[in-house]
């Protein structure tokens, strides 16, 4: 009876969101109610079904953490603690930035995708990969793909991961650049996080060894001071050094990435990671409370005219681009690396995989819903003024007039007042999603605590929060990618594979930083703002990795003769194949230069040449080539998987799974 009521309430909330039109603006609470009800039903019924029927989770079977317990990699851990660990590893800036960008289509398509996509796609992927890794001694996605499908799948997973990292770091770097450009307050606050992380590193290493929570709390206090003090920096004699253009900031970020990769971990990477985790947990909880307390109305319409593909934030129709842009908030291939990395080596009981694999992704999806609320509670005119590149709408009064002519009224005076409220000189063309999200978050925080007088403080806190988050991904990602490259190069020349050999560290760090630095530079110099080309490329790469993960899961299901349950992974797989392949086709071949890379290159070639023309043409062709390579590789995995499935189903091939043998856990006997 209770669950029927939950189902009705969820359907009602989704209905309210779907049919609200004109002045009838739904409250943010309807988003929350819709999400919570659908998540509850998904968790209670669907995840249980998957756990019992598809994965056949069995608490009497020993887990790798218990069997291989070595106190280091394999450590049996209480389920809620593992949940916290897993969530901290999967939740990055993607679910914050993606929904904000996708809000240009209106709130409806992306909200539905975030909620339904997570329940039927993202959570399923994380859960089944965790479950299967758990039954294979915690093996990685690449290894399982290689074992169960074939070597092409394993190789594709590796290339996919490297590509995603390079593009992801570049696009996130661009988001930070756009958030900090021309702002002494934002730049000085973000810059201050580097020495603060080093102080924390020294504190944890030399003063109070191992007191990580304590050291992080100290760092958070110092960061609070930096946010507060940042407002005065512009008035100082050195203040002008912090007012920077995008290219200058990009150079600093590239230099920072290199340093973070070669410096000792304890000095920068580890303390920054802890600081970021602290602030991430606190801010997300505060945002949730703020949304419930304020429950602002959604001012963005459910659908905008930009579903036609001509949106100013990025080009492309609602299908497939809404589903690409939302990225990690609904499904993320990258999660499958974590679900087959640290997490399966921590689970004490097999059935804990349900809470951790399925439940943590629901939580991440909820973060995406909150980001969506923060974006759509802004006046649509303000949202478009902040997120539209100057190359499309211009800037100042001309931009305001153009956006007003689309039916989203905004005045230059209002934009100036808003910029003054948040302590910025201008908010026009602050693309990338982070500034508009920061304005939305500042509204929510200020509405709940402090009012308009502290809007600027909250805005810069939000910018710092986003930047800290992003820089953590940037330095950790550079380092992981460097290790992967060292592993690969070690096969060619052994010393290059030694992770402690400094010449190898310098060469491989430089190669990885050059790879993402190139894309970052390309984005900074792109007249359309860079996000336009880089974010869809990242989204496509990430969802293509999810395709590999779902191919693997489907292959195992079929090999285990549970074909009747194959739809659990086949349906999201089919959807992802449709979305990613269509998006790739549009990004490469669409005749509209705002969408297609090749059309953009052609348009540039036909226009009067400038000093940048040749470079921009090359960049567009490079993006098209990267996209094409990714699609071809995933197509190969699909073909290899299909051959496996057909062979097994027709009886021509033996269904040999690479599962570890069943060992009964002693925990059951001890508890029984």
């Amino acid at each position, binding site marked *: 009876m209770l669950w029927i009521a939950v189902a009705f309430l969820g359907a009602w909330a989704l209905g309210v969101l779907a049919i609200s039109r004109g002045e009838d603006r739904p409250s943010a609470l309807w988003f929350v109610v819709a999400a919570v009800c659908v998540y509850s039903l998904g968790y209670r019924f669907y995840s249980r079904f998957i756990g019992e029927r598809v994965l056949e989770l069995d608490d009497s079977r020993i887990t790798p953490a218990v069997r291989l317990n070595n106190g280091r990699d394999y450590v049996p851990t209480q389920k*809620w603690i593992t*949940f*916290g660990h897993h969530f901290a590893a999967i939740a990055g800036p*993607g679910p914050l930035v993606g929904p904000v960008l996708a809000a240009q289509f209106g709130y409806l398509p992306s909200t539905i995708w975030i909620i339904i996509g997570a329940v039927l796609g993202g959570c399923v992927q994380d859960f089944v990969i965790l479950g299967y890794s758990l039954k294979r001694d915690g093996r990685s996605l690449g290894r399982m793909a290689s074992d169960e499908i074939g070597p092409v799948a394993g190789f594709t997973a590796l290339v996919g991961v490297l590509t995603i990292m390079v593009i*992801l770091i570049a696009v996130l770097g661009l988001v930070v650049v756009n958030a900090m450009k021309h702002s002494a307050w934002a730049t000085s606050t973000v810059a201050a996080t580097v020495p603060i992380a080093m102080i924390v590193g020294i504190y944890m290493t030399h003063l109070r060894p191992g007191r990580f929570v304590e050291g992080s709390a100290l760092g958070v206090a110092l960061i609070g001071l930096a946010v507060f003090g940042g407002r005065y920096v512009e008035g100082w004699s050195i203040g002008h050094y912090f007012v920077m253009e995008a290219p200058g900031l990009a150079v600093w970020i590239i230099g920072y990435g290199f340093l973070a990769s070669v410096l000792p971990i304890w000095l920068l990477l580890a303390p920054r*990671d802890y600081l970021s985790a602290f602030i991430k947990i606190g801010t997300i909880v505060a945002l949730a409370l703020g949304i419930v307390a304020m429950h602002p109305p959604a001012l963005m319409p459910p659908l905008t005219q930009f579903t036609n593909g001509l949106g100013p934030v990025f080009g492309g129709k609602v299908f497939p681009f809404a589903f690409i842009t939302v990225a990690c908030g609904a499904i993320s291939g990258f999660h499958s690396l974590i679900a087959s990395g640290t997490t399966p080596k921590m689970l004490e009981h097999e059935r804990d995989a349900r809470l951790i694999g399925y439940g943590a992704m629901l939580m991440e999806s909820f973060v995406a819903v909150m980001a969506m609320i923060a974006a759509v509670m802004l006046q649509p005119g303000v949202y478009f003024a902040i997120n539209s590149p100057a190359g499309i709408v211009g800037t100042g009064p001309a931009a305001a007039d153009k956006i007003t002519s689309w039916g989203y009224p905004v005045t230059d005076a209002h934009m100036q007042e808003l910029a003054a409220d948040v302590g910025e000189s201008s908010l026009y063309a602050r693309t990338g999603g982070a500034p508009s999200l920061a304005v939305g978050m500042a509204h929510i925080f200020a509405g709940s605590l402090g009012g308009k007088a502290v809007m600027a403080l909250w805005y810069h806190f939000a910018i710092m929060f986003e930047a800290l988050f992003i820089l953590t991904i940037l330095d950790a990602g550079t380092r*992981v990618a460097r*290790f992967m490259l060292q592993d690969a190069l070690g096969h060619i020349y052994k010393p290059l594979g030694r992770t402690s050999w400094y010449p190898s560290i310098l060469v491989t760090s430089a190669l990885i930083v050059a790879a993402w630095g190139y894309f970052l530079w390309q984005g900074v110099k792109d007249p359309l703002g860079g996000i336009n080309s880089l974010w869809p490329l990242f989204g496509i790469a990430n969802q293509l990795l999810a395709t590999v993960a779902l191919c693997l899961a489907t292959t195992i299901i079929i090999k285990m003769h549970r074909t009747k349950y194959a739809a659990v992974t086949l349906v999201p797989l089919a959807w992802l194949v449709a979305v990613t392949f269509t998006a790739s086709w549009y990004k490469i071949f669409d005749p509209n230069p705002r969408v297609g890379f090749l059309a953009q290159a052609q348009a540039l070639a036909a226009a009067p040449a400038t000093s940048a023309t040749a470079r921009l043409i090359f960049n567009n062709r490079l993006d098209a080539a990267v996209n094409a390579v990714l699609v071809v590789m995933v197509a190969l995995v699909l073909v290899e998987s299909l051959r496996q499935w057909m062979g097994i189903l027709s009886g021509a091939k033996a269904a040999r799974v690479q599962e570890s043998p069943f060992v009964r856990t002693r925990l059951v006997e001890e508890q029984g």
Partner: protein
Amino acid sequence: MKRARKTIRDFATTAVAALREIFDEAAYARFLDRAGVRSSREAYESFRREFEEAKVRRPKCC
């Protein structure tokens, strides 16, 4: 009332334990146990040498 207090206490214990795990304090404590040494700069150095290789290879998602 007693039950509510117990629930709050359990929740707080789990939250603190999760924080200690996320922040690797628990990993350090396990290392000290395993090595049979007390916390010191030298012990922390050894822990770091052993632990960092694994830590930096952990991907963090977007």
